[in-house]
């Protein structure tokens, strides 16, 4: 108290100095008010801490049976065992490979097709109804068929992800390209651009940041498809480990597997975002 009093005379407007201190907490409650990056980071981390704390209390406190839910400590121990004794790194590698492989194939087919549909209304009219229909076919329902067609090998896993991703990407890319700014297209025409030039140097670069965001989103979905594919008829991968652990009632390993998927997903998302931001600096300036 005395130190505050001592500081007072140095301040030309004591009233003004205290006013923002009162206003600050109130401002934080205002809608859309931004938070400082540090606060943001701390708040984000705080929820993880809270989550683990609640989980610990529930399991270590004996409120939930360990048969149904392993404690964080057990989970970490089981995770360690997975890596040291059960070759879990190989499982992770397989899963990552399948996701990236299937996703890459889907993008390779879907992005050019989506651009073509977005740019040319005739192509859109021809393909859009069918693709829209296919989009609602659940990829996981194809698994029995795909096993019949492609066996239990890697091709079947890739196809599940491919089917799950390709139609989504086509449609979202088509919409992005189709909603290009008309005035930019007109400006390009008055500068002497040909129809091909419009597609290559106006529609595609203009849509590129959005397309990259679409791919990032769909990559997230691909992770859910791969686990489903691995739950059925697989001899490796994170999904396979989870089914094995289920048979042994090892909830610690199951949770560890799920958390690993979450972490890999988060990291890939983060990397994707960073690459997008670098590639399309113009759109975020």
């Amino acid at each position, binding site marked *: 108290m005395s130190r505050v009093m001592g500081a007072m005379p140095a301040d030309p407007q004591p009233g003004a100095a205290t006013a923002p201190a009162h206003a600050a907490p109130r401002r934080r409650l205002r809608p859309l008010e931004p938070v400082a990056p540090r606060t943001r980071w701390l708040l984000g981390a705080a929820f993880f801490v809270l989550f683990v704390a609640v989980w610990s209390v529930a399991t270590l406190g004996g409120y939930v049976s360990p048969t149904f839910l392993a404690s964080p400590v057990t989970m970490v121990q089981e995770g360690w065992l997975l890596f040291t004794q059960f070759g879990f790194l190989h499982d992770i590698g397989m899963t990552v490979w399948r996701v990236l492989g299937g996703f890459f194939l889907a993008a390779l087919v879907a992005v050019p097709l989506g651009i073509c549909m977005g740019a040319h209304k005739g192509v859109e009219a021809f393909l859009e109804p069918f693709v829209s229909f296919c989009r609602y076919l659940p990829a996981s329902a194809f698994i029995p068929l795909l096993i019949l067609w492609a066996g239990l090998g890697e091709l079947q896993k890739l196809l599940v992800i491919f089917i799950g991703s390709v139609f989504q990407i086509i449609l979202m890319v088509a919409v992005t390209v189709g909603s290009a700014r008309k005035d930019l297209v*007109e400006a390009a*025409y008055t500068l*002497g651009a040909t129809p091909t030039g419009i597609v290559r140097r106006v529609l595609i670069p203009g849509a590129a940041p959005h397309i990259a965001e679409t791919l990032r989103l769909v990559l997230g979905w691909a992770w859910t498809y791969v686990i489903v594919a691995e739950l059925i008829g697989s001899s490796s991968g994170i999904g396979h480990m989870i089914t094995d652990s289920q048979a042994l009632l090892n909830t610690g390993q199951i949770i560890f597997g799920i958390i690993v998927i979450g972490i890999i997903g988060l990291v890939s998302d983060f990397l994707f975002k960073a690459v997008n931001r670098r590639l399309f600096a113009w759109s975020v300036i």
Partner: protein
Amino acid sequence: MSELHIQGVSRTFTSAKGPATQALLPVDFHVADNDFVTILGPSGCGKSTMLRIVAGLDQPTAGRVLLDGQPVTGPGADRGMVFQSYTLFPWLTIEQNIRFGLRERGVAESVQKERAAYFIAKVGLRGFEQHYPKQLSGGMQQRTAIARALANDPKILLMDEPFGALDNQTRVLMQELLLGIWEAERKTVMFVTHDIDEAIFMANRVAVFSARPGRIKSEIAVDLPHPRHYRVKTSPEFMELKARLTEEIRAESMAADAH
């Protein structure tokens, strides 16, 4: 030489439901080589429609547009256009934007660079070559758009209220800049505006549009000497023209309002 003839051009917008809207009654108009013509009219009178037809971005319902005797069938590099909205390509730098048309037409890279540098200097944007459009103010973006259109060396420059979105001070400076460029380069310019001062200050001739459906109601020659200084705006001759055009536009605005 570049001469523009607008012959009996009219435009009717049809919609699936509701009656068709006549935007433009048959218009006959002629722009001579190196002329600077402003098209003045109340908003929604069809003056922009006419300009878009000249650009080839819209098709006339009847009539035709001839540039140097050749009918206009679609947009082309011989008719450069500056739009009211900011139409720089946001993914290209200022320099790349200015080079866009040259690149599309396969002009040699060294020529592209040279012309871009020339027009960047002309519109006072030296030092901003590597900036992206978003980093520039509205006035700077429109200066880039003018440079981009001019770098392509069009026969005629079409301007659709290019300074309409700018604040008043910037707009006045942009008018002086454009007029200065015109006095040096002697391009043929067709400039659409609803601002009377702007219409008189830059033009050799002002064409007044009627309220919708649009037609050219009168043409007024502006015989103010070149080079024009901003002080010309306070001269008695300017004031007299302004009073006359104000009367004409006022009648049309009231007619438009009554619709």
